[in-house]
Structures are given as C-alpha cells and as structure tokens.
C-alpha cells in the first residue's frame, strides 16, 4: 500500500454538502434496531444483583434457593468468571468491575446474576440470592479520599510517580507531572497573580439508550454477541479474554447506538451475559435499567483543582500552574493525567507546570466522557484566565489572543504544534456579533476556550462495487454521529460518483480486520482516511478493467470525475467509461471490483474551540437560563457540515447540563441518591436556546481532505464559559460545578452578608 495521507487542497464535489443520512428513515420510523431490539428463539432474561453497600467484604453468597426456583436457568457469581487475566492489572479491574470478587466497591457493584425464562422470575430469583456482607467504612469525596486518614479502598495501592516509593498504601494511585520552564521564576516576574481552587461534581454521559446485549454461546465454543457499543472489536477482545475464549470464535455485531459519548467504550454487562449464556446453554438478553446505568456504568470524574496564573501588566502570562485531583472510582485510571495534559494546551507559556493525582473513591469505575477530563481542567483554568484578565483590566478575548498557542508553540504537555485553530477561533469570537449584543439586567456574558487531542488508530474498511455500479462501504467504526453519511460522501468524492450510489454499513467483527473503537473523535477522521485509501485501490482496479476493455496499457488510463479516461491523442475516439460501465462488464473482465484498506490513521490534528454564552440569573432563586450560545470550532474540513454542527451543539448542550444541574449526589450512607432522570437533571429541549455554530476550516496536514475530529472538543469550553457568564451576571465568582440554584443562591447570600 502506498497510500499518501497528506492534505492535497483539492476542490470538493460531494464533501461539504448536506445530504440526508442513510440511517435516518429507520430511526424516525422506529425500525432501527438498538441493543434491546435483537431477539433469539429460546432467549432468557438476564438480571444482575447489585451491592447496596458502598464498600463491603463479600463473606458469602448462597445462590441455592435462586437456583431451585422454577424457570431459573443459570445463576452466576465471580466463581463463574475465573481470573484469566494473567497479571494484566487493567483487565483484572474490568473483570472485578463486571462481577465483584472479594469486595463490593460501590453502591451498585454487581455481585451475582441470573438468567431466567422471564423478567418476573429473574427478579424473584435475585431476591432469593443471599449475600453476607461485612460493611466497611467508605469514602466518596475526591478530597476526603486523598486524605491520609481516609478509608483505604485497596491496601495494595502505593502511589506511583513519587520520587520515593511510599511506605504506606493510599487511595492516590498515581502522580503525574507535565510542563516546562521554571514556574517560580515566572511568578516572580508577574505583576498580577490569580490563585483559586475549584470543584466539579461527577456527571454521567446520560445516553438515552441503556446498555443492552444478547449473548449466545454455542455448544461448540463459538459465540455471538449483539450489543450496543462504540467499539465491537474492542468488546470482542475484552470479552474473549475475560471468558477464556479465542477472539476469533466470538462474533460481535454492533447495534444502532442511542448515544455513547465514551460511556460505551467499556464492557460491563457483556461478559456477564456471555457467562450466563455459557452456563444456561441458551441465549441471554441483558438490558440495564436506568437505575443500573447510573449506579453501575461509568460516569466521569469528580474533581478538585487548584490553579495559579501570573501575568505582567502588558498581559503576557509569565507562569501557570495547576494541581488536579480526579476521582477514578475504585480502580486505577489516568484521568487526572489527561486533565493535567489538557489544562493549559490553549496557551503559549514559557513556564508551566501541571500535576495530576488519580484518586480512588467508592463510586462506579470512571469511564470516558466526551473529551474525558478536559472540561473540568478547562473550567478551572479558563475561570482563572478570565479573572486575571479582569484584574489586568484587559478584555477577556484580547488577553487570550495575546497568549494563545500558535504553529510552532511547544504545548504544555510536550509536543510542538503544527497549524492549529485556537487563534482563529478567538479572532472569530472577537468579531462575532454575539459579543456586541446588548445585555439586560441580571444577564451576563462569558466565553472560554477548549482543547482536545483527537485520536486516529487502527482502521480497516472494504469498498465493494456492485455490477449495477452501486458502492457498498463496510466500515468497522460504529456510527455515533452520522459517520455513515460522512463516509459515503468521502467514497463518492474519491470515486467521483453521486452520494446516492454509496451505501455505508458498519460491519461485524468477523467481516473486517480489527478496528479501534469510535472514540477520541476518530470515527470520521480515521475511517475517511481508510475509505479514501480503499477507494483509491478500487480506482486502480477500475483503471485496469477499463484498459482491458479498451485493450490499451493501463498507464494510459486515468480516473476523472467517476470515469476512466484514455489519455493521449491516439485514443481520441474512445469515450470515457463510467464506473457503472466498467462495473457492468466486471463479470467478464476479471470478476468483482473492490478496494480494501487497512491502516493506522496517524496525525489526528489537535482541535480547538471557543464558546460564547449569555445567561440570565434570577437573583431571588439562583435559577439560571442560558439565553444565547455560540460555538466556534475548527473542523479541519467539515465533511458533512450538518453533522459537524450537530456535534458542536451536542457538546454544548451536554456542557450546559453539566455546568448548571447535573451531578451524582451521594448520601452519607454512600448510596447514590439520584439514579434516574427525574433527579439527575439533564437539560430538556426547552432549557436550551438554539445553539449557534461557526465552523472554521484550518486543514489538518495529515489527512487527504484536511479532516480533524470534531466530536469531543465542543464539551470542553462550556463549563468555563457558563461559569464566566454566571460570575459576570451576579458579580460573584462561581467555583463549584454544577452551579445549581441552591449553590448560586448560597453564594449570593454569602456575598450580600459580606
């Protein structure tokens, strides 16, 4: 394969248009099949028994009564999922999270599961399982957990990354540090310094579709899994490893997905469903309830962050420092590390230092949530940046422009940037009419910037050309945001045919080579690269077939606008052959025509956004309404602009919920108090204004069309933009997310009382 991924600056015919999506009709008519919509003959209902305790030793589990109940076909505990992880600590944590082995580590931790002939019997069976717990002291707050007096969640954890190996175990699993220069020297040069501490509460991705799967383990050792996931190849690897199967014997088919946002990149119920099916000898459907989704699938981290930034009178930042503590749930993670990497990524800094601490708590295992860890770090940093601008008497946008990273800037987390979009998004915001719109009483405006890395990764696609000239594109990245439409546009563009002749599908794990999952905003970036490569391989064959049909050397055949063209005056009387013409003759010119591609999509371009937000705060109740919101973000190249806008709006909407009302609320007993959408308040439609978007296109030099991932960055600035807006509206600096009405009213009362 001699695929050249470099940006070529071509003119586009299909890319950049807005056709309707191929999966749209099925979705609006209710025909689309989501995780719970698969069914098999003889299928059983799986249900999971969960710990009511935040932290408890499991002394004994007696399943005998449940097993005797008529209609129960299998009961499993950790014994049915033996440890086959062979020293792989991360896999062991996944296994232990799927089914608690020695201790229940959070309210909702799975301890046993049943498969029965119907839901009623399954529920009854759960009540018949007797679990003897020894309840232990628990800790759910990130700062309390990091304290040396806190109850230890795992006494084998000794903080990594310290200069000396600690003598005592701790809930802090790891310390990481990033930066360059000398922050002490930098602060010494500062005329103004802002130093503050911030907190953010834990939020859930809030996908509408709960986790759901059907597992069918056959007597010959092969198995099928239909599942709602962001990455069926990864699920196959993890499930096979946990169950002691060869990955090739497990075929995983991804369903349509009712939202994932990072939360469907981790297995929870799937190994349990497979173990139940293996034991029962029948297919098992396992669908989580909303209560289970909240209690036992992955929320993001709660955080506690200290920020210190200094600047000279002229507005130059001289030093910036942050200490970030992120909760991981009861298992080690790298969430604070990512926060520490992203915190100051928007700025050109001579002296910068960030330190991250990963903290264990008795809460569900933290999972990725859209640009995981970045929104909280951005909230803290962008709040401090705003406050510093005020102290300097500088406009908040101008202050950021003066310090923004550029091409050639060494990022705070290490690498040197290529062409990037932070400066252009800030300039666009500076000149946006939103910034000049008048504000009324009790209203405030805020803005903030955000950064996300974006990923590429392993990708494999197949492009098959039918004899009727239609093109079917099989990709291995799950479509979470309209990527089948975008990838069809890319195939149409490269082949020079109409979008309507391309149909993209997401293929199962037995039909394509390995694909990394749809995360890191990689779906369209990486699969479009593979699609371009596959199309170019198909074009090579199309040219060969045309050459054969004309009986001329293939070197004399080029591909232009969907046609093979014979080049040279001697071929003057040969009319170009369309893709359809060549496909129609393929049966007699060598058989089916296809293009394949397998690659590692390197060079995902980093992504930046700047958001503007207006809020109105009711000073008597602390209630906040977002009345105007604008997202400006670099897309590299917007393949399907409507879905790019959708990503911008979706990230902003989730950020608004996080900023204002969403939070995990734990009682003193360590139990989650609000495991449902009534009291875990995501925004409803009427809570949101129309979110305006502006797409900037600063081409990614490492993609043929200049594409950058767009899915995640949009959730990074909102917490800070809204916090800055609220703080400007009420005149009090808000440092605790969510800024729920009781928190705002309490802050206002504290200010009034001086």
């Amino acid at each position, binding site marked *: 394969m001699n695929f050249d991924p470099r940006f070529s600056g071509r003119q586009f015919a299909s890319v950049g248009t807005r056709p309707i999506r191929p999966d749209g009709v099925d979705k609006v008519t209710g025909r689309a099949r989501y995780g719970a919509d698969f069914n098999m003959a003889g299928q059983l209902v799986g249900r999971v028994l969960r710990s009511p305790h935040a932290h408890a030793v499991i002394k004994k589990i007696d399943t005998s009564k449940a097993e005797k109940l008529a209609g129960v076909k299998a009961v499993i505990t950790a014994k049915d999922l033996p440890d086959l992880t062979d020293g792989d600590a991360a896999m062991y944590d996944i296994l232990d999270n799927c089914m608690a082995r020695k201790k229940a580590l959070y309210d909702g931790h799975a301890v046993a599961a049943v498969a029965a002939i119907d839901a009623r019997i399954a529920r009854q069976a759960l009540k018949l399982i007797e679990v003897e717990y020894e309840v232990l002291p628990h800790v759910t707050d990130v700062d309390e957990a990091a304290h040396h007096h806190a109850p230890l969640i795992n006494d084998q954890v000794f903080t990594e990354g310290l200069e000396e190996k600690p003598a005592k175990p701790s809930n802090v699993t790891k310390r990481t540090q990033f930066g360059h220069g000398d922050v002490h020297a930098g602060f010494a040069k500062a005329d103004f310094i802002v130093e503050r501490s911030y907190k953010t509460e834990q939020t859930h991705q809030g996908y509408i579709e709960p986790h759901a799967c059907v597992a069918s383990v056959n007597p010959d050792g092969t198995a099928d899994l239909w599942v709602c996931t962001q990455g069926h190849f990864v699920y196959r690897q993890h499930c096979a490893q946990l169950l002691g199967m060869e990955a090739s014997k497990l075929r995983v088919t991804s369903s349509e997905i009712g939202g994932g946002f990072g939360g469907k990149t981790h297995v929870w119920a799937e190994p349990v469903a497979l173990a139940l099916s293996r034991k029962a000898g029948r297919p098992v459907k396992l669908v989580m309830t909303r209560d289970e989704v909240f209690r036992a699938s992955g929320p993001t981290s709660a955080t506690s962050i200290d920020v210190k930034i200094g600047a000279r009178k002229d507005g130059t930042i001289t030093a910036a420092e942050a200490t970030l503590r992120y909760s991981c749930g009861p298992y080690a993670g790298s969430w604070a590390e990512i926060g520490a990497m992203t915190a100051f990524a928007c700025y050109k800094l001579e002296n910068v230092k960030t330190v991250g601490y990963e903290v264990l708590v008795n809460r569900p295992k933290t999972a990725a949530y859209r640009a995981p860890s970045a929104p909280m770090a951005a909230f803290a940093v962008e709040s401090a940046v705003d406050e510093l601008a005020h102290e300097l008497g500088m406009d908040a946008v101008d202050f950021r422009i003066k310090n923004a990273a550029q091409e050639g800037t060494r990022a705070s987390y290490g690498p040197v940037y290529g062409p990037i979009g932070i400066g252009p998004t800030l300039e666009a915001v500076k000149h946006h009419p939103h910034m000049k719109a008048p504000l009324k009483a009790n209203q405030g405006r805020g803005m903030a910037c955000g950064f996300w890395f974006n990923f590429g990764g392993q990708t494999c696609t197949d492009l098959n050309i039918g004899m009727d000239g239609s093109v079917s594109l099989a990709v291995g990245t799950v479509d979470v945001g309209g990527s089948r439409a975008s990838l069809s546009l890319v195939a149409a563009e490269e082949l020079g045919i109409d979008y309507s002749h391309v149909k993209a599908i997401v293929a199962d794990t037995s039909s394509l080579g390995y694909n990394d999952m749809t995360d890191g905003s990689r779906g369209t970036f990486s699969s479009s690269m593979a699609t371009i490569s596959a199309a170019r391989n198909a074009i090579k064959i199309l040219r060969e077939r045309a050459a054969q049909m004309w009986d001329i050397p293939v070197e004399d055949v080029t591909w232009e606008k969907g046609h093979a063209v014979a080049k040279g005056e001697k071929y003057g009387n040969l009319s170009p052959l369309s893709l359809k013409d060549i496909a129609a003759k393929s049966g007699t010119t060598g058989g089916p025509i296809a293009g394949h591609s397998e690659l590692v999509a390197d060079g995902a371009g980093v992504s930046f956004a700047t958001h503007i937000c207006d809020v109105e705060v009711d000073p008597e109740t602390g*209630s906040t309404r977002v009345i105007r919101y604008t997202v400006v973000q670099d897309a590299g190249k917007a393949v399907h602009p409507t879905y790019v806008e959708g990503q911008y709006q979706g990230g902003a909407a989730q950020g608004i919920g996080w900023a*204002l009302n969403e939070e995990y*609320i734990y009682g003193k007993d360590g139990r989650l108090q609000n495991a449902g959408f009534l009291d875990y308040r995501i925004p*409803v439609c009427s809570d949101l204004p129309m979110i305006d978007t502006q797409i900037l296109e600063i081409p990614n030099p490492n993609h043929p069309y200049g594409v950058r991932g767009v899915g995640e960055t949009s959730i990074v600035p909102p917490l800070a933009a809204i916090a800055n807006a609220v703080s400007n509206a009420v005149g009090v600096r808000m440092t605790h997310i969510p800024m729920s009405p*009781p928190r705002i009213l*309490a802050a206002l009362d504290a200010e009034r009382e001086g």
Partner: protein
Amino acid sequence: MRYIRPLSIEDAVGELAKAVGPAAILAGGSDLLVRMKGGFVEPELIVDIKRIGGLSDVTETAEGFRIGAAVPCAVLGENKALRKAWPGVVEAANLIGSKQVQGRCTITGNLCNASPAADSVPALVAAGAKAVVAGPSGKRTIAVETVPTGPGRTSLAKGEIVEAILLDKRPEHAGDAYLRFIPRTEMDIAVVSAGVNLTLDDKGAIKTARVALGAAAPTVLLVEEAGQVLVGSKLDEATMERLAKICSGACRPIDDKRGTIEFRRKVAGVLARRVAAIAYKRAGGK
C-alpha cells in the same frame, strides 16, 4: 396479579374492601405503572376505575365543578369554563410531567399519591377543593388537605376510593395561581411550590385568601396565617414582605437531592410573593 375493570363504584369499592394482598387503584397509571416497573410495588390486585360511569367527566353544577377521578389533567386544560374559574388549579395540573404524562395523569391520583411535591395539590388546597370519598360504609366529602397524611400515606381507609374532586363556583373578583420552583423549565418535580387563591371586595382589597405551600413539609401546607395577612390589603410592599416571611417561617423542609433547607425556606417566600401577585391580577386587582 389480578387486573379488573369494574363498571360501578360499588363494585370497585367491594373488590378493594375484600382484597387480601396489596391492592392498587389504576386511573392514568403515571405513578403506579412507574413504581411497578421499578419493582417498588407488586400489587396482587389492580382496580382500573376508568370504566366507572361519571369518573371520566368534568361536570359544571350549581355549586361549581365536579372533576371525576379518572379525568386526565390534559382534559382540564381543554375545559374553558374550568380554566376561567380556576386558572391556578388548571395551570398546576398542566405542569405535571410532560405533555404525554398529562394525557394520562389525574389530579385525584396526584392527591392520593400523597407526595409533598405534588403540583396540583397546593393549588387544590388553596382553592378549598373537596374530595368525594366512596367507601364500604357510603360516601363522604372531605377537604383535600385532609387526604395526604405524610409522604405516600393517606387518611383513606381500606376499600375507599376518591371518586371526584369538587371546586366551588366562583364569585366576582376571584383569582388563583400556582408557581413551582424547578431547576429546569419542564418535566421536573417541584423543589418548593406555592398556590394562592384570593377574592377581592368591590374596592379591590383582598376579602378572602388561602395560601398553600408544596415540598416544604411532609404534606402540602395550608398556611392560614399567610392568608390572614393578605386580607384587607392590596398587596402593598409591606404585606408582601410579611407574606414571604410567614411562608418561609411556616416551612418545615428537609435537605435532600432536590434542595437544601435554606434554599426551600427562602424560595417559598419568593414564590408566595410572586404567586400572590398573579392571583391578585387575575382577580382584577390593580
């Protein structure tokens, strides 16, 4: 589980009275079905009252309005006469859940579910609404505020069914209103709420007043002192201040996932002022 759909209130009462295990009454089901699905209740008998004659009707009588126990809240919103007479009750009923839920849920169900945060109940209490209770020993009519006795608990005896809610005929210069605080704009549950019902004299001064608070105590509170402070006034600033103070003071709230004690106290006063002003305007006050 047994599901029955009796055609007369007597049959329904009889079935409930002789039920051995847990029994439940089903009208819209917007509370019951959710609780069953969540595994919180497992009734052995479900008595669907929607086919019982008269229970799905809103009737205007010489005394006022009779709202059958199975009338969905959305139907109240479509009744012009009711909307004109009791706008506060109707707006409260039309805040429950979502549009879809309003097509099913009933104010009688809202009352008998006995949540302190029930939206229609403070408005009904302020309105002085009555509940017609059918039971094994006949029928009785009681003030709605005597139905709930605590979260999830009512004064109804075994076999008793609330078959209708009664609202009085309105005199001239009368108005009612309901406001709740929710962090969102809709599809939410009251953190604290207030209902006010007023009548004015010919000079525009308040003649009678009833003030009720929701989500501020284990049951909806009728704050009689708050009503008294309004009588004789035209809602001048000093009266409003006193109203807010009395309502904040009357609260016996808790700290929970929906709000703090401090927040509920404070906002109860704020809402009482705001809702009194709306009711006053509706009554024709200036």
